[in-house]
């Protein structure tokens, strides 16, 4: 039984490596990845090594409880890969990052969770600041660049999410767009853009503004943008849809939503991403990340899971399936995306983006949020 598991794991991973080796041209869907579990043993690609020592694989694999602030359609397949590869029985609670974090705070020391997998630094920060995370091993932390992990080692970034300007291709060309997000305060943009101030990523960007620009300049930006009568949307998805339909010309969103629309509606979808080249807060690349709960009943599996999220297999999964930026060096991004290194990113520590309360207050004072 155990042997079968190990064999199956190797097969799966080998097959996966093959699939990902084919590169973007093969355009694997989540479905394809699930099906690879069935691939017979003759596939002989080098297996991907999971950082768990061999004796641990042989031992009773045990359980793992993951609280995921990322939705099942995004991370379900990769969690299933982990379960299949290790034999660990994984139970997942899905929700939005803010609500899962609130649940963790309410559960306190009685939480059944082993791992919190969050969409944005705000959620990780809230749980870390409440003292609910245990430090992660150095070899896991060191897999990602310094800005994308907690300085205290309490959580680690898993994938990168770039803030972009999505624009309607019938109304605008990239040349029409400014280099810095500050420039949208110009009255020529009045009534032409949409944003989602209740969205966690938008709020993370405003937090980055407070860090990069300071409180006063951020307030000025928000006030000037408010004067430009932005259309308020509930989330990034709604914005991208509205931009594609021409309801607004531009929107401030994360980069990967567009690719899902292109996949479902084809290249005719009239919106494209513009990565602000200015290097300011508009060029922020945030991290989704994970941490291990201090009260975890399965700490070894929790650490194994987090290490797995940073393995080549998982990083390639995020690149090709969720169109995000892999944070581990050496994993290629999806076709059509500029490489992380090519972006003029804002230089900011993710851990500095945890003051969500301050950002909410500023957004309320400027009338952006109710």
């Amino acid at each position, binding site marked *: 039984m155990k042997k079968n598991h190990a064999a199956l794991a190797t097969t799966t991973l080998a097959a996966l490596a093959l699939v990902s080796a084919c590169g973007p041209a093969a355009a694997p869907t989540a479905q394809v990845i699930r099906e690879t579990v069935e691939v017979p043993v003759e596939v002989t690609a080098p297996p991907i090594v999971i950082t768990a020592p061999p004796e641990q694989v042989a031992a009773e694999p045990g359980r793992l409880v993951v609280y995921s602030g990322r939705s099942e359609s995004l991370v379900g397949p990769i969690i299933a890969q982990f379960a299949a590869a290790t034999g660990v029985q994984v139970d997942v609670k899905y929700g939005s990052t803010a609500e899962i974090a*609130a649940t963790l705070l309410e559960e306190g020391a009685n939480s059944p969770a082993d791992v919190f997998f969050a969409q944005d630094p705000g959620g990780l920060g809230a749980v870390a600041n409440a003292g609910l995370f245990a430090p992660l091993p150095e070899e896991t932390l060191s897999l990602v660049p310094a800005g994308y992990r907690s300085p205290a080692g309490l959580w680690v970034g898993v994938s990168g999410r770039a803030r972009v300007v999505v624009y309607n291709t019938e109304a605008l060309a990239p040349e029409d767009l400014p280099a810095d997000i500050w420039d949208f305060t110009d009255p020529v943009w009045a009534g032409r853009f949409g944003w989602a101030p209740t969205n966690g990523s938008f709020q993370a960007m405003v937090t980055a503004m407070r860090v990069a620009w300071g409180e006063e300049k951020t307030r000025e930006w928000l006030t000037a943008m408010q004067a430009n009568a932005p259309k308020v949307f509930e989330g990034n998805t709604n914005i991208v849809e509205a931009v594609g339909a021409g*309801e607004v010309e531009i929107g401030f969103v994360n980069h990967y939503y567009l690719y899902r629309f292109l996949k479902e509606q084809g290249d005719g979808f009239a919106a494209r991403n513009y990565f602000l080249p200015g290097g300011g807060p508009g060029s922020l690349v945030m991290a989704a990340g994970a941490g291990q709960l201090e009260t975890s009943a399965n700490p070894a599996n929790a650490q194994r899971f987090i290490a797995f999220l940073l393995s080549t297999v998982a990083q390639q999964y995020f690149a090709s399936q969720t169109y995000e930026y892999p944070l581990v060096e050496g994993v290629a991004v999806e076709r059509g995306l500029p490489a992380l290194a090519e972006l003029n990113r804002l230089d900011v520590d993710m851990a500095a983006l945890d003051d*969500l309360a301050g950002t909410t207050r500023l957004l309320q004072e400027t009338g952006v949020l109710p």
Partner: protein
Amino acid sequence: MPHASRQPARWTTPTRLALWALSALVAAAVLLPTVYLFVRAAGADPQVWAGLLRTRTLEILGRTLLLAASVTAASIGVAVPLAWLTTRTDLPLRRAWSLILPLPLVVPSYVSAYLFVSAFGPRGLLQGLLEAPLGVTRLPEIYGLPGAVVILTLLSYPYVFLSTRAALLRMSPTLEESARSLGEGAWSTFWRVTLPLLRPALGAGGLLVALYTLRDFGAVSLLRYDTFTRVLYVSYRSFDREGSALLALVLVVLTLVVLGFEAWLLRRVTQPTASATRPPRILPLGSWRWPAFLFTLGVAFLSLFLPAGLLLYWLIRGLNSGETLMALGGATWNSLLGSGLAAALAVAAALPVAILSVRYPGRLTRLIERLTYASFALPGIVIALALVFFGARQAPFLYQTLALLVFAYAVLYLPQAVGALRTTLLQIPPSLDEAARSLGRRPLQAFWEVTVPLLRPGLLAGASLVFLTAMKDLPATLILAPLGFDTLATEVWSAVSEAFFARAAAPALLIVLMSSLPLAFFVGRD
């Protein structure tokens, strides 16, 4: 022993005490979230109190009440004619409409509002259809108060429709017929006889609409109308639990205001003495027949056919572009199981409360009955976090079990069952029970053999309402469900939140389908 007084000592003392004890227990359970809010709010720092008194907060309170009042009025305006048309007239396809018109209640508001925006948005489907032949490039704004009122009315008018319809069916036609025979016209009979008799039903239905509006988050956020619930969510998302609790307590106060207003409106309602013994005469609509039909069709089109059609369109478009359908068997079963148990528990809990408040009317019983509404205007996340607080700390063996989830559903949706049972019970004269007892039945036996069969429509209506609202519930399910317990609603959410529309369509359609079954069952029996 037939008593003439309104408060006869009709049941034996132990039975009555049990009734009181059970009702008190139910009220205590419903108050649990409010207790949690007090615990949390006590820790709020003074800055939060200052924030509460911002002019902006007060302004939003005003906007919220305005929305609740408008939606309630609009729902009554839409639902009463529909209920009357389907019970009293020769409207074409009368029985089919009775089944179709309550169904919009099963469409989750986040789905419905999303579809509404993509259909009628400034550059939505409708505009696309009009652009080629008519050159329309922009439609008027749907965002803000008008859009929110329209959408929430389309979603919640069934509360009033169902309660009014039930009342019309059980109302003795003799009163209306006497009025007609005394020379009153159809209109004036409706205004002077029928409508006053409908007041308890309008109160019960309208109350649910108003509280539903207070609680709604999905529709108001998509239609960009800031209500108090949005402020509450913003606060939760910034992890400020103390401030959020304080804001939620304001919602509890708002609920009390709405309840007080309803009580004031119904302050002099008398209990009807006679109930329907035979079906009412069917009024021929004459030349109004087809306009009435078009009105009914229009409401059904906007509230049900359009969203269902768009979901189908998404599904087909997705399937055409190579999307495969997810296996939904597990989620469907979980939804049925959770909602079914919730319906049973809520009705069981509502029964003693309804009996007590109708058969022993008084300040205290009325208070207990009103208390069951305390949690209905609270957004699901508040109830859920309260139960996380108590569950994880005080009852870890219950935490993340189906039992706690069902309990949460029951707490959230109990008022719907209480309302349905109360209105039905009000129309069953206690004299029937007393007659049975004078024929030698013991009190409970008389109740079981006489009142319960008559109560069945109310039991079914209450159970169905709880069933379908639990089925579309999202916040409580996401937070409290056992690990790995996916429901149809969480499948929809998971897909929509990541813009996988094709994947969202199948479970959303299944929600509509699954919840129509009990609805069809109980409406079909009338």
